[in-house]
């Protein structure tokens, strides 16, 4: 069941349905225009109650006689003087002749086969029952929907459209009916009268009534249009509802996707930060590496240029580190590096940056520090390292080289000066602090 519903759902979701509906509308309108006809023959033999009538009821003296054959009713009459409008004819009862009849309102063409043997017109009354005017037992209160015509000699039928009928004006006058209600109504016809027309010549005549035929559409135009409009309306309503649900579903999915993307982005940001941090940090000691040093140096350079704040550079190297590695192994060497880093980190300010320059060489970049203060710091560090047992195997000392940054100089020169000072410390017997003092520009 759900699969069928899914299929219907899919069908409605497709725009092809609109084209199908459009094609169906065109076909329906074309079929209505060129087909869908309903043709009904009124076979006279099916209606046994056929009553002759003349103007004798109105005081005239005309005579009539009817003969029924298999396919027709032959009315022989003689019109005589006596009544002002002499007539003769026949009544065909379609129902009970009073209140129950046939509905001809849905037909748009009425075919009448009447063959006269005489001159003059023929009058047809479709007597309509309308409860508003009908008086019980009074046949005269049935509405006179009339048409009068000259019948053809040939066998062709006379053709009428309902609009060609009118309600007899004398009947409207006699019954005092409002003109608004005196409209042709063929919805309930219990009786048809066929008579000689107005001013029919006196004397003998014959009318051969062969039958009636009614032609209409199987479906009324209004009904067809209503059905089509309803079909379009319902289809569009369903499509609209489905689109609405689709849109809601899509929006929820998009929101979920966006949330997932934001989570991924957040995770990537964290990962990126971690990568950046790890790329700037020495994995063994946790202090900055050369890549990390670049950004710190740039910051301090800017500080010096803008504020004239002095920047000093302390380069330190572990004495005889190769011997430590060679004698005790690299793990002990690593222990020296780690413990030395911890010791220095504990003695410098948070604003100072400790950088592992490579191997056993370290740099301390001291912002807002003149060379004499850096010298003092280095001396303190030197003594602290000398006094601390970094590894149990042997005493570790460091040599220091210090320089102060000069505004506008290449950092390479700063490093060269510090390196030369460090070299002097090494040459002087190690475990020393050497400052590269310089001539200040005043």
């Amino acid at each position, binding site marked *: 069941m759900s699969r069928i519903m899914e299929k219907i759902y899919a069908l409605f979701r497709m725009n092809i349905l609109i084209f199908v509906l459009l094609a169906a509308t065109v076909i329906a309108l074309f079929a209505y225009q060129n087909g869908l006809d309903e043709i009904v023959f009124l076979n006279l033999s099916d209606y046994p109650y056929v009553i002759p009538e003349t103007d004798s009821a109105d005081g005239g003296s005309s005579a009539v006689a009817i003969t029924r054959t298999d396919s027709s009713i032959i009315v022989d009459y003689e019109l005589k003087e006596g009544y002002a409008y002499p007539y003769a004819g026949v009544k065909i009862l379609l129902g009970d002749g009073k209140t129950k009849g046939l509905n001809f309102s849905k037909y748009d063409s009425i075919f009448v086969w009447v063959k006269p043997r005489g001159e003059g017109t023929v009058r047809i009354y479709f007597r309509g029952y309308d409860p508003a005017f009908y008086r019980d037992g009074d046949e005269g209160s049935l509405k006179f929907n009339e048409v009068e015509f000259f019948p053809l000699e040939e066998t062709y039928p006379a053709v009428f459209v309902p609009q060609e009928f009118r309600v007899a004006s004398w009947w409207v006058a006699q019954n005092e009916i409002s003109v608004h209600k005196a409209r042709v109504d063929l919805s309930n016809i219990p009786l048809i009268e066929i008579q000689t027309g107005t001013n029919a010549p006196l004397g003998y005549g014959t009318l051969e009534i062969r039958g009636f035929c009614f032609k209409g559409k199987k479906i009324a135009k209004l009904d067809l249009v209503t059905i089509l409009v309803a079909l379009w309306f319902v289809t569009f309503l369903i499509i609209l509802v489905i689109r609405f649900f689709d849109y809601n579903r899509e929006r929820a999915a998009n929101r979920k996707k966006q949330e997932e993307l934001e989570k991924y982005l957040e995770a990537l940001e964290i990962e990126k930060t971690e990568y950046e941090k790890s790329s700037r940090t020495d994995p063994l000691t946790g202090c900055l590496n050369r890549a990390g040093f670049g950004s710190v140096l740039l910051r301090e350079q800017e500080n010096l240029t803008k504020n004239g704040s002095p920047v000093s550079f302390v380069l330190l190297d572990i004495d005889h580190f190769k011997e430590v590695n060679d004698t005790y192994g690299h793990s002990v060497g690593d222990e020296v590096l780690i413990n030395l880093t911890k010791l220095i980190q504990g003695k410098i300010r948070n604003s100072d940056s400790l950088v592992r320059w490579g191997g056993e060489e370290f740099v301390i970049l001291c912002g807002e520090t003149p060379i*004499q203060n850096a010298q*003092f710091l280095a*001396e303190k560090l030197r003594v602290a390292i000398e006094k601390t047992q970094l590894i149990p195997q042997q005493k570790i000392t460091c040599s220091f080289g210090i320089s102060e940054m000069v505004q*506008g100089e290449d950092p390479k020169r700063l490093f060269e000066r510090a390196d*030369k000072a460090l070299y*002097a410390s090494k040459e*002087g017997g190690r475990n020393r602090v050497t400052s590269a003092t310089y001539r200040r520009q005043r």
Partner: protein
Amino acid sequence: MKRLAVLLFPAALLLVSCANKEPEVEFKPIQLNWSARSEAAESHPDKDRCVISITSSLMQDKRILASKMELLDYLVLYDVNGESLEFEGICGNTAFKDAIECRWKAVCATEKNVVVKFHNGD
């Protein structure tokens, strides 16, 4: 050709003069090996300030910067004298022991500027 040279020369001169020249820095390596003569000197409250002041004075002294020695290596002995600290610097390199910058004295008193006096009376 001459006209082109006349045009190019001032342009090149302008470019050279506008170029950001890197300052040339003359420097002198200096080692100060501090050694207290007494525990009182080592724990004196003004010791750190005095050490930094003396270092600064020495580093800025023209005799140090003009020294013929490639490395100025001083052993600095210090002791308490009354409320002051007395510092005496002696060159480690004996080859230049007669040089004016090879021997100096400084007295560091509270809230006073330190004056480094080199031995031959300067």
